[in-house]
């Protein structure tokens, strides 16, 4: 019933949105659709913040000065593939949206990628993680921007196995993303000589993880790998502390953790966690400057997560490619984006590979102890940098049909 009501509301919201924008629509308008979780467990790490990031990119590109008309629309996909692909279809067919960006929740992203390919539009993934987006499900219309499960597994997994964490138990969110993250991490663990002693798949989204943590505890694995994200990771970590998992000698590996998760957990609970990110606000002057502007417009003055940074970087490069290629045809813009090197203040210089993988460095970070933190958002130490050429899965191993 709730769902019925919500979808009625969404439809109503669309009707309004469409009415308002139709009047201005012409072929001269570039319309960017930010599609993500605006209200659920991923809303803080993607959500309205991604709309802010897209807006900043349009501003920094100087669209107005260059005489380009750029419009941004947004919607909530509620982490449901059917809702997400319906919105994508409506956007492409009715609202003349040219590109969809962000889209956390891999199951939704895979669906939207298919719709985008069918319609010949462009899709810039920042929020979703499954490495399949540039592997067997790769598409000439999709670029996977910020991070992926292979990169997380490679960064966090191998660092942990090399420091002695050689037996693993996985706590996995039961959908495409969790499965991909578990699969990619397991491969890294095995490759580095570790073993996997067990795994359990929890319903998504979940709230009580105690039962699963107890199974992890009795598995005696040295490392409990959390192949989940957002609210699920927060509650897993919190409840693991309650059940004395770390005190009992086991360690947690948060395989996908975001700045906002750590902020929500608080340093006393989160300290010492190690994971991989591709962006941290306090890296350099450019990232701090961006953060200041982002935070001024973001809900609750939050700081940007790597997903927000990725949306900014992707939209900026997209607009540059349109300017250079003089077309907003989805397939052509994506091809142009792959052809041109990327360069932006947040990720530096980089490239987009033929399989749609954006390439940049990754960072192994550690959560600070409460005593080390100098401000409410001073949360990470950067332990190591994984160079761009090693951070992501080599193209040949992905099995992307585009590059065979």
């Amino acid at each position: 019933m709730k769902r019925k009501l919500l979808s009625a509301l969404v439809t109503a919201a669309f009707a309004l949105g469409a009415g308002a924008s139709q009047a201005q629509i012409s072929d001269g308008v570039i319309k960017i659709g930010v599609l993500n979780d605006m209200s659920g467990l991923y809303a803080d790490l993607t959500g309205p913040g991604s709309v802010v990031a897209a807006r900043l990119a349009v501003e920094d590109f100087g669209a107005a000065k260059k005489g380009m008309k750029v419009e941004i629309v947004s919607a909530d996909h509620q982490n449901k593939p059917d809702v997400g692909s319906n919105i994508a279809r409506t956007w492409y067919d009715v609202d003349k949206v040219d590109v969809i960006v962000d889209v956390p929740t891999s199951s939704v992203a895979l669906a939207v990628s298919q719709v985008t390919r069918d319609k010949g539009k462009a899709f810039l993934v920042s929020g979703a993680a499954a490495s399949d987006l540039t592997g067997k499900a790769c598409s000439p219309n999709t670029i996977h921007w910020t991070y992926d499960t292979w990169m997380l597994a490679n960064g966090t997994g191998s660092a942990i196995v090399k420091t002695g964490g050689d037996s693993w138990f996985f706590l996995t969110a039961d959908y495409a993303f969790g499965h991909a993250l578990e699969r990619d991490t397991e491969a890294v663990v095995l490759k580095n000589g570790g073993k996997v002693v067990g795994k359990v798949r929890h319903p998504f989204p979940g709230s009580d993880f105690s039962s699963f943590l107890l199974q992890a505890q009795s598995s005696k694995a040295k490392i409990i790998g959390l192949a989940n994200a957002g609210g699920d990771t927060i509650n897993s970590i919190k409840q693991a502390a309650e059940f004395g998992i770390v005190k009992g000698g086991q360690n947690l590996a948060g395989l996908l953790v975001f700045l906002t998760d750590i902020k929500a957990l608080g340093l006393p609970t989160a300290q010492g966690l190690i994971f991989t990110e591709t962006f941290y606000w306090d890296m350099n002057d450019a990232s701090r400057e961006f953060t200041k502007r982002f935070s001024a417009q973001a809900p609750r003055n939050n700081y940007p997560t790597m997903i927000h940074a990725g949306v900014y970087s992707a939209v900026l490069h997209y607009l540059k490619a349109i300017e250079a290629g003089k077309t907003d045809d989805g397939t052509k813009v994506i091809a142009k984006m792959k052809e041109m090197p990327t360069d932006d203040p947040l990720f530096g210089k980089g490239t987009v590979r033929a399989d749609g993988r954006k390439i940049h460095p990754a960072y192994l970070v550690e959560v600070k102890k409460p005593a080390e933190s100098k401000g409410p958002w001073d949360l990470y130490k950067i332990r190591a940098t994984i160079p761009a050429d090693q951070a992501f899965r080599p193209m040949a191993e992905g099995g992307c049909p585009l590059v065979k």
Partner: protein
Amino acid sequence: MEIFGIPSQALFGQLLIGLINGSFYALLSLGLAVIFGLLNIINFTHGAQYMLGAFCAYFLLNRFGIGYWWSLLFAPLVVGALGIVIERLMLSKLYKLDHLYGLLLTFGLALVIQGLFRNEFGSSGLPYQIPDQLQGAQNLGFMFLPNYRAWVIAASVVVCLATWFIIERTKLGAYLRAATENAPLVQAFGINVPRMITLTYGFGVALAALAGVMAAPIYQVSPNMGADLIIVVFAVVVIGGMGSIMGSILTGFGLGVIEGLTKVFYPEASSTVIFIIMAIVLLLKPAGLFGTQK
């Protein structure tokens, strides 16, 4: 020793965990059952009120320095008072109409309250620490039981039984039950029925808030915490029999255990098992396990 391939020790642990989750189901479904049984209102705001209880505890701690123990008292009072305002201003206008109107109103209120909180506090939630006295855990041999969870089971059993006792075994409870059967008659005996109904709603809401305070240290204090739970709790009430006090308590604990076991044997189904049971119960016994057909 192994039972169905699971070491019995692990199984005991899971049973206990199931009971802990069941105690939240019981507390919440109890409030719903009280409200439905005595007011005939399907209180869809219950999840939001549970969330408000947790937020109230958070504010008491962070704005006023009032700790967990006092929050157990104050948060239900504050949220219960809010509930009374809702009952007086809105719900009381709907008693004569179909159940559906109350359901729609409370559902709308829940969406509004959750939306406002999400807008203000985001979706990842706010941290709330376990009180110092309940930090740590006991090693029971078959599992590691956090002290706080032990406290949750104990407290919830006490609250549930006390509520049952008040409604089923005291004079006040007798008035309440009589008022649901025949309000004009009870009023003729000089009892202020509208006020009693208002207070009952306030009490049901306070129970939700109490559950919220107890949940705060376990889950994040987050705007969605109630929405995630309320559907399950409704299923519990339906299985137990709408309006049956003891039914909702027993079903709450029972389903917690069944859900816990599902998490061991087939974790993928753990979010659906309760609804499967609900469907079966509705087919076989439409009034619920402990309900009576009116």
